[in-house]
């Protein structure tokens, strides 16, 4: 695969649960450095598709290639090591760990550690830990969590918890960041500032992002490309403007919101 091509390619994905077809022959690509959004009404198969992309589910047919490697059926930690990181729709922080500790855990696959080295605290390990802490603090600051390093995750405000999830995902040093409904439950103010933050990720970190969203304002504002799923099928794909005016999309999902 070409360096500047697609970071992720899903070819002919089909997923059946018994007789139910949850995802029906969907092709999907994520170009490097872009923000791609996946939208669709409830029950459209977004979450199933998301789980296939992250390797949690094995598709009935078709394949997912991340950076040229097939990832179907790999355990989650190996997918993360390859460079794909995610956030959770229902926040899953390590609640009783501090913000900094949350981020440090996510560096697991990137730092050497070693039980014996940790016990003897070798100079090499000390340096590595210092660098990890330093990097963690930078990430928190970058994510808008300045001075929150030592706060327990559960004590953070809701919007900050969402940011911490992103900071934690970034700590795994991903090539692709998957955000699963990151603005769910946020108030408009938090949503707006979060959207700015996601845009900043692309500009400053050159991050490739897949966004699964309900909130049209978020999707239309920052996406380079939008894919619409309905009943397990891809009904539209293209630039936000284009998708927004697609009659099938309006019919299936956007309804009056598109004209309003």
């Amino acid at each position: 695969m070409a360096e500047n091509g697609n970071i992720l390619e899903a070819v002919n994905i089909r997923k059946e649960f018994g007789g139910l077809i949850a995802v029906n022959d969907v092709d999907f690509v994520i170009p490097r450095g872009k923000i791609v959004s996946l939208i669709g009404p409830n029950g459209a198969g977004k979450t199933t598709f998301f789980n296939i992309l992250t390797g949690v589910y094995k598709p009935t047919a078709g394949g997912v290639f991340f950076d040229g490697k097939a990832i179907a059926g790999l355990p989650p930690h190996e997918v993360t090591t390859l460079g794909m990181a995610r956030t959770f729709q229902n926040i899953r922080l390590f609640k009783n760990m501090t913000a900094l500790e949350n981020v440090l855990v996510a560096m697991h696959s990137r730092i050497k550690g070693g039980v014996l080295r940790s016990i003897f605290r070798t100079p090499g390990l000390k340096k590595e830990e210092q660098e990890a802490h330093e990097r963690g603090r930078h990430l928190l600051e970058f994510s808008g969590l300045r001075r929150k390093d030592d706060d327990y995750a559960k004590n953070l405000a809701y919007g900050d918890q969402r940011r911490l999830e992103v900071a934690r995902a970034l700590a795994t040093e991903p090539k692709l960041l998957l955000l699963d409904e990151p603005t769910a439950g946020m108030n408009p103010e938090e949503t707006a500032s979060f959207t700015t933050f996601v845009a900043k990720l692309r500009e400053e970190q050159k991050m490739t992002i897949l966004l699964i969203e309900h909130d049209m304002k978020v999707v239309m504002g920052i996406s380079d490309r939008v894919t619409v799923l309905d009943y397990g099928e891809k009904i539209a794909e293209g630039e936000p403007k284009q998708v927004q005016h697609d009659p099938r999309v309006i019919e299936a999902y956007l309804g009056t919101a598109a004209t309003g």
Partner: protein
Amino acid sequence: MTTPAARVRAPDWLGGDLARRWALPVAVIALIVSYPLWAIEDPFRALFVDKLGMDMDTVFQMAVYVMLALGLNIVVGYAGLLDLGYVAFFALGAYTLGWFGSGLFSERNVHFLDVGNKALPGIHLSFWVVVPLAGLICAIAGIIIGWPTLRLRGDYLAIVTLGFGEIIPDVFRNGDDIAGHNLTNGVRGVTQLDRPGFGTTLNDATGGLLPDRYSSLPSELKPWFYTILFMCLITIFVNLRLRDSKMGRAWIAVREDEIAASAMGVPLMRTKLWAYAIGGIFGGLAGSIYGSFINGIFPTSFSFQISIIVLVMVVVGGMGNIWGVIVGASLISWLNFAGLGKIGEWINGVIPGVSNDIEVTKYKFGIFGVLLILMMLFRPEGLIPSARRKAEFKEGEGEASLYDVSH
């Protein structure tokens, strides 16, 4: 929404953080290290030995349990894996000494740096070789036991580990005829175990400071005490270091949320196996020196009760907090080995008319049960909880609402 109070750091006078963090531990350690020098001599003897029953024998056993509790703390306190069969490692450590430091295999005659009689039949490796060997064997056993069981979670894991804790003493009980080989001497147990010692050369060289061979005379137990103390200090050190390491963070993350942890790149199986193996090592080390000290290993010495009592020590002390676990283990093991008996004597002496009618030790498990219930009611986070634990038990009290109206 309650904003967390900014962590207030006291000024760095008096040597700063370091001194404050270590002043108390160092003072306590100094008192403990010097224990045989002051507590069992007059005038303290009246209190510590006569009143509290903390003679060297009891103190040694307390230290063994501190070590066991610290080992289990890694499994239960850090990684959150409820292990009800921890006694298996304790037993395996003791039997390792039986295999490599006694006359059990009397048809062999292997001696390696041991300090006993060279004419004795059996395999006799130096005690200082057997102890790490016990740790190694227990680490391997931990991985073998953990491989199938750690796929289970929560209650299921507890039940399977309980099973292993029951099976292992049974294996030792029936191990006197495994395909014609006597590996454990069955119910008769293994006796006449090798004792630690440094040999005559080192004894002479240090002017008698390092004993030639440890004695089991009640008045000569100081070397035993210092040996187990040294082992405890190593255990504490490893506990501390691992807590603040990549592995320690991964353990806590796995305890908090397995799915999130694995999505963040933490390999679940390997992380849990490490906890099991390291916990097992300390169980094994404690078992090997304990076996030598009591000079007899029997399948019945390693009952399910030990697993539970060590778990109680961890819970009462404060899961995940090293100092809490040490206090919990010292307290419970003291009650177990001496305290309850002494309390019974005291009750019988103070209350007239019931003289010698109340044998408090008989109600041991009843008392421990009540104690545990009281703990759970009034201080569920343990005597000295870690900050993290304390926060956990406050969960829900100040929980943020989903939508923050103050924004």
